């Protein structure tokens, strides 16, 4: 017998098993081979003398879900075949579900996406009560919808109102929460109990059908034709768009699929669902998301940007110098991940304030029910607030997080290293100052590195690791592993002014200010950013970081460039910066910037911007405004890639989204170039350069890529096929 991914095992009592066991693989996967095997096994079962069916997995997980490689390759040519595969799979599920005999899913491990859909058609679901057993439909996070019955069955099981958040947010549930939500029926304590319970239920329920196949069944909460649902429905698409900015099609399609399916019979609903999954899989956004958030992020997690030969150890004790917002956030992040932290500042009071910040963050988690008081206390106990330099002894890593001032940072480094063990790594949390220069203050420049955290640390997933000219492979490897140890996502960049993220981020803020300098309405600038998918507009973000900081960075850059005998390239946005500083509007912290911050109510744009910058209506189309923001960042990323500031496409993509808010729908700043089409991107950049200035001039690397028609990708990436 050839290997099959669905093995039918017959038992004398007629309660047969489907054993899901993809040959030569760690996990079960929903692909064409699985579909064929599932169909064959279904035929065999239905032809046999059976009384019930238990579906179980031979892997650690129950079922991993759809084959993302295949899904990301659905195109206009193979779409009909993909539709056929989905329909075949679902026909099998439907035949088993309507055969009148009990089908039980024995869920031993994670059952996500397609894996959970393999459970949903069962009449009864038993799950192993272990933390690694997660259930849910995360398809939406990769731009897809649960197309193997997930939308149709969840709506019929829970009703539209309860099903939609699960479907559109892709939440994953623990066994206990799934039980409470009515998604599973029983918990088991161990593998033996799991199978025993599944078999027992099948044996004691010889004649069963799904609720939705019973006479008189009504969808819980009603259908769209009923006033209770009809009253609330008109605003739901607007609510979805408020979250997606109109840029992500999957949540909208899920909503449409759920509502349309609720108005027809099951078999029609499931066909509508198949049409929607094909539509999404064909679309570009789904490919962008799978590329970056699946393949590339997995490569980063697997350490593809880390020097492969170097060993490292999990760190037990680190020091953070500077207990401001940033330092306190880093200390919190380390402590919550089991690391002892010395949080040092110049006086005990300031250091304690940093610890209080961590306490406040923990308090919020306690209030949300995400943490117990005892857990919070043990985390806090790991943070040692101090002003005594000797407390740095035994720290394996010290992260300096003092103000962005070269002299101060250098002094702090000099002082710290006299108290540190000789093997310790010194990291600077600088966002702009070149690491190689800062390393001069260190005795061991090979053990000096940049760890650029983003604010607020506890929320922002990225850490930009900056490798100085003398940073060793061993130091880089240790830093990389440390970032993962505290559950952040590392990208690796080479040393240069502004590194990667600050440099690209600067083009976004300055483009926003340049538009205002041209008399474009500030609301349009901010709305264009929102509608392009950015989390926040450039003017709002300048207020957040403060105009004062932008000015300081500019002065530092000017001074450094002068020292190097280079010219400072002026940006048309700087006129706005200067004028705003003249007007004493320094940003949010100062209480006024591009926005007004009333004591009561929401912030709003300062009305006088319109007069100070001679704002005229309809100076630019929305599309041009959106493109200026997207293209200027993508072009700067290309320049960084060309100059070797950033070495991999995955780091550029993930870094741009996780660090500086480049819209997720694009798949990142370089994937945005790929997804637009190289020639199209080049032509558009050229036209933007003609209209809006030389900063849009395409770099060589883009011209070459467009000429050769070779999209930007990494060699040895896991999606190389």
């Amino acid at each position, binding site marked *: 017998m050839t290997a099959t991914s669905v093995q039918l095992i017959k038992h004398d009592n007629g309660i047969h098993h489907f054993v899901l066991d993809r040959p030569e693989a760690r996990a079960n996967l929903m692909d064409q081979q699985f579909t064929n095997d599932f169909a064959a096994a279904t035929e065999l079962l239905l032809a046999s003398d059976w009384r019930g069916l238990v579906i179980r997995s031979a892997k650690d997980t129950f079922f991993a879900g759809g084959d993302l490689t295949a899904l990301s390759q659905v195109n206009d040519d193979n779409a009909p075949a993909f539709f056929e595969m989905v329909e075949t799979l679902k026909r099998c599920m439907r035949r088993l579900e309507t055969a009148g005999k009990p089908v039980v899913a024995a869920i031993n491990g994670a059952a996500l996406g397609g894996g959970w859909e393999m459970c949903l058609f069962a009449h009864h679901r038993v799950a192993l009560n272990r933390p690694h057993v997660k259930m849910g439909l995360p398809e939406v996070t990769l731009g897809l919808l649960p197309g193997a019955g997930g939308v149709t069955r969840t709506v019929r099981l829970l009703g539209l109102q309860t099903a939609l958040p699960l479907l559109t947010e892709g939440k994953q549930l623990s066994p206990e929460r799934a039980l409470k939500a009515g998604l599973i029926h029983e918990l088991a304590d161990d593998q033996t109990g799991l199978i025993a319970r599944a078999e027992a239920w099948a044996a004691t329920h010889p004649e069963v059908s799904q609720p939705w196949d019973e006479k008189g069944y009504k969808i819980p909460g009603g259908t*769209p*034709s009923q*006033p209770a649902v*009809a009253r609330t*429905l*008109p*605003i*739901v*698409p*607007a*609510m*979805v*768009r*408020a979250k997606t900015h*109109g840029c992500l099609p999957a949540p*909208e*399609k899920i*909503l*449409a699929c759920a*509502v*349309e399916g609720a108005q027809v019979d099951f078999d029609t609903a499931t066909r509508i669902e198949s049409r929607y999954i094909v539509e999404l899989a064909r679309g570009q956004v789904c490919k962008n998301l799978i590329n970056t958030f699946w393949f590339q992020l997995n490569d980063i997690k697997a350490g593809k940007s880390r020097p492969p030969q170097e060993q490292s150890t999990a760190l037990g004790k680190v020091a953070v110098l500077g207990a401001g917002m940033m330092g306190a956030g880093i200390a919190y992040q380390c402590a919550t991940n089991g690391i002892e932290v010395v949080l040092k500042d110049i006086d005990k009071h300031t250091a304690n304030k940093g610890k209080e910040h961590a306490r406040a963050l923990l308090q919020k988690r306690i209030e949300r029910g995400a943490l117990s008081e005892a857990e919070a206390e043990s985390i806090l106990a790991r943070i040692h607030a101090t002003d005594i330099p000797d407390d740095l002894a035994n720290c394996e890593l010290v992260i300096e997080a003092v103000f962005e001032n070269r002299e101060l940072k250098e002094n702090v480094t000099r002082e710290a290293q006299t108290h540190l063990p000789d093997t310790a790594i010194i990291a600077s949390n600088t966002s702009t100052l070149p690491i190689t220069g800062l390393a001069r203050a260190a005795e061991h420049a090979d053990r000096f590195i940049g760890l650029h955290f983003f604010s607020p640390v506890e929320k922002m997933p990225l850490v930009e690791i900056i490798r100085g000219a003398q940073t060793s492979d061993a130091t880089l490897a240790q830093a990389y592993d440390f970032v993962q140890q505290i559950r952040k996502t590392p990208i690796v960049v080479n040393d240069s002014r502004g590194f990667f993220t600050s440099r690209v981020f600067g083009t976004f803020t300055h483009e926003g200010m340049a538009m205002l300098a041209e008399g474009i*309405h*500030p*609301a*349009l600038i*901010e*709305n*264009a950013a*929102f*509608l392009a998918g950015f989390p926040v507009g450039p003017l709002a973000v300048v207020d957040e970081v403060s105009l004062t900081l932008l000015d300081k960075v500019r002065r530092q850059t000017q001074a450094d460039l002068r020292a190097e005998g280079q010219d400072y390239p002026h940006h048309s946005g700087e006129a706005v910066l200067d004028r705003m500083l003249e007007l004493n509007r320094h940003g949010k912290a100062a209480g006024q910037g591009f926005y007004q911050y009333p004591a009561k109510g929401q912030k*709003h*744009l300062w009305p006088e911007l319109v007069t100070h910058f001679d704002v005229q*209506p*309809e100076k630019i189309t*929305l599309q041009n*405004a959106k493109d200026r923001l997207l293209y200027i960042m993508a072009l700067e990323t290309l320049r960084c890639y060309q100059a070797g500031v950033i070495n991999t496409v995955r780091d550029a993509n993930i870094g741009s989204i996780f660090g500086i808010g480049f819209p997720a729908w694009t798949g990142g700043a370089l994937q945005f170039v790929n997804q637009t089409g190289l020639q199209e991107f080049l032509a558009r950049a050229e036209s933007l350069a003609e209209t809006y200035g030389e900063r849009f001039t395409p770099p060589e690397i883009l011209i070459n890529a467009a000429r050769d028609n070779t999209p930007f990708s990494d060699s040895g990436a896991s999606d190389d096929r």
Partner: protein
Amino acid sequence: MTPDAYIFDALRTPRGRGKASGTLYEVKPISLLTQLLQALHARNGQFPTDQVDDIVLGCVTAVGDQGADIAKTAALAAGWQDNVAGVTLNRFCASGLEAVNMAAQKVRSGWEHLVVAGGVESMSRVPMGSDGGAWALDPATNANTGFMPQGIGADLIATLAGFSRAELDEFAMHSHHKAAKAWAKGAFDRAIVPVRDANQFVILAQDETIRPDASLDSLGALKPSFADMGAMGFDGVARAKYPEVERIHHLHTPGNSSGIVDGAALLLMGSQTAASQWGLKPRAVVRATALVGTDPTIMLTGPAPAARKALAIAGLTAADIDLYEINEAFASVVLRCAHELKVPLEKINVNGGAIAMGHPLGATGAMLTGTLLDELEARDKQFGLITLCVGGGMGIATVIERV
């Protein structure tokens, strides 16, 4: 030569508050219509009902009590002869005026000579929106077309034009004061047919929602109607289409928006042939009808372009028009239209409007036509123009001239 379309008579019911507490809640929409049909025939009794070619009625929410072609049903219920046809139409808020326009077009075609036009809406019994529809309820259509409730559009109009809450409230206050004065001087006497029960007891003889004592204080105390739903998501829909707007100022309240009411209206229209044959006196001629479509998201900017289109057809300018009826769906709609057409407010809605008396969706256009004609006669003026904003971004206008 194209025959002219004349208006012979126009009548309406009083408007009752469109809630269970409203006086007309107990009256079936079919009863509103049968009483009006009987009154229309009684007042113009020389024509045999079998000479009526068609009854064209606006009815927006044509389900339940108002479902299944209530125009034909009403003709039967009113005892009109079997060979009278009837049709209901839905052009959202313009349905009543669309019925008038369609009747005019039927007459001008030369193929029909005597047509009843009008409309009915019992908003207390058949709530607005209860007919469903893909625009609001189909998520794919809703999202693709930028669906947004009219109220947000009205607030967006106010935001774009910079209207203040006080300006809107002032307009609303005047609507109430004008309506109260109009009733007092008998401006509606000719048109009003009181609603009665089977015993001929009067159930309602006057419009029910007018507040003669409306003041800026009383109106200013009301809370904005659309702020919450705007914040939940619809403001974002508006900003996506109007990106130079940072935030929508939610200024419309129940006080400066049209009232939800019950009511019906009918006009008797026809050709010179019918007039001569049945001794009917032409009071006005329909000079032009026009429809336009504008941005469906802001939705309520159709009146000015529709008016301009109708004026061009009639060979007139805005200044030639003596009196306007611009439906008071929301205060900002009328103010914007007045600005766009450069018409002084003194010429507009001189006897009040839907803010004071209510907007029974399917009937309003027909009511406005009758009101305008009565007032042109009272003032001995020549030209009048009726226009309404319409769902889906449409606009409608009709120019009438006294004869």
